[in-house]
């Protein structure tokens, strides 16, 4: 174990950096996508609701590994074989593993975040929105000043949970060759054959990141609850 840490410690730490980079990109864009589709699913407009429903169901219904191969290999293949695209593109379309990986992770995380946001908003008493509207406040002002602040507080545990899942899901993107922790661990094993030790080290590294994330989330939650305790 010591020998592996000495020889490959830096190598694995770099891989962990790549894991974190991918996770951050996925979470950042995932949150934006999630807020967008989450709001789309609660507005009083059937077309918006259906668009959001379709997106969420496609992503939830397809394994992320399939989505990863589709984005990384499938889309460039289709584009580069289409006469129409050939006319526009000066050179063939190629996604780096980072680009394809973060698109895939963002889409995946976004769908689950959208569901969390939808459920969080729907859990707020409709009377809150009605009272705001009855005062003459427009829909989005009522949403952002009254409904969302209450909803977000309730969503935090689910959001943290989704962050953890997305962080762990980065490991799936080892299949498209993105140099994250699992991918690099396999390299180390192919040289040293010490799979028992390497997987323990990798497991502990994930564990540390996730415990740190949980710690930060708890601090944040406590901060948000300070001064305004929960109602009812």
């Amino acid at each position: 174990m010591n020998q592996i840490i000495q020889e490959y410690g830096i190598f694995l730490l770099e891989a962990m950096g790549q894991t974190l980079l991918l996770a951050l990109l996925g979470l950042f864009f995932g949150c934006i996508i999630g807020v967008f589709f989450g709001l789309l699913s609660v507005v009083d407009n059937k077309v918006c609701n259906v668009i959001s429903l379709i997106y969420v169901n496609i992503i939830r219904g397809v394994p992320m590994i399939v989505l990863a191969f589709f984005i990384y290999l499938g889309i460039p293949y289709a584009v580069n074989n289409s006469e129409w695209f050939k006319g526009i593109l000066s050179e063939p379309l190629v996604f780096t593993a980072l680009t394809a990986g973060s698109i895939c992770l963002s889409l995946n995380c976004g769908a689950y975040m959208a569901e969390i946001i939808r459920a969080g908003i729907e859990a707020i008493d409709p009377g809150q929105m009605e009272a705001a509207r009855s005062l003459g406040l427009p829909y989005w002002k009522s949403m952002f000043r009254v409904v969302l602040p209450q909803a977000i507080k309730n969503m935090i545990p689910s959001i943290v949970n989704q962050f953890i899942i997305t962080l762990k899901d980065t490991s799936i993107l080892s299949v498209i060759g993105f140099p994250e922790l699992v991918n690099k661990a396999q390299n180390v094993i192919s040289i040293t054959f010490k799979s028992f030790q390497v997987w323990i080290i990798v497991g502990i590294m994930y564990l540390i990141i996730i415990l740190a994330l949980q710690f930060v989330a708890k601090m944040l939650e406590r901060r948000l609850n300070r001064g305004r305790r929960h109602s009812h």
Partner: protein
Amino acid sequence: MAEDTPIKIHVENLHKSFHKNHVLRGITTDIKEGEVVVIIGPSGGGKSTFLRCLNRLEDITKGTVIVDGFDISSKKTNMNKVRENIGMVFQHFNLFANLNVLSNLTLAPLELKKANKEEAKQEAMKMLDMVGLSEKAESYPHELSGGQRQRVAIARALCMHPDIMLFDEPTSALDPEMVGEVLAVMKDLAKNGMTMVIVTHEMGFARDVADRVLFIADGVIMEEGTPEEIFNNPKNERTKDFLNAVL
């Protein structure tokens, strides 16, 4: 009510359906400025739905509703503007749970640029004083009793300086000993000339403050008249049955 008092709310042949459920079946009435109209009737008869059509919290299926000169049965009318002049008080108070009492009162005036921070705060304190709760300005809704919450809700609506106030069973969710404090505030409002439409089960209050009582059942106005006419001398069989059951 004098004959020449201007009409505040004009309702003509109002219908409202929820899917196949035909709740309002042609309601026609005029409410004058400063008039206090109390609506009574059995549950499920359409009282609350009628009230909620007056600020279009419910979409209007058919008919005409004109409030303050705005045709709110038209889809094109900017409801946000109209609602600024119609205060509403709900059965379950609906105070904003994430804001303290003061912010509950100042949110709409500030967001809608009706006042600057200082003015809004002063106005809010004045209204809180009026409902007897100025010492609760910094409290959160969950720290108040039901009666206090409802008085804050009334103050919140008044901060927009509405000329019409709608009350949807404002005392139905209250413990009996808190009903009086809320009715007292409403009585003050009525005395000061506010146009009010009130759905309530408080018959004593109705008799006391109403200029006119509407008995609504099965989605129509079955009978209307002064409190004396309705309570002492009901003509309609349904009204008689209802009053016998509740009085």
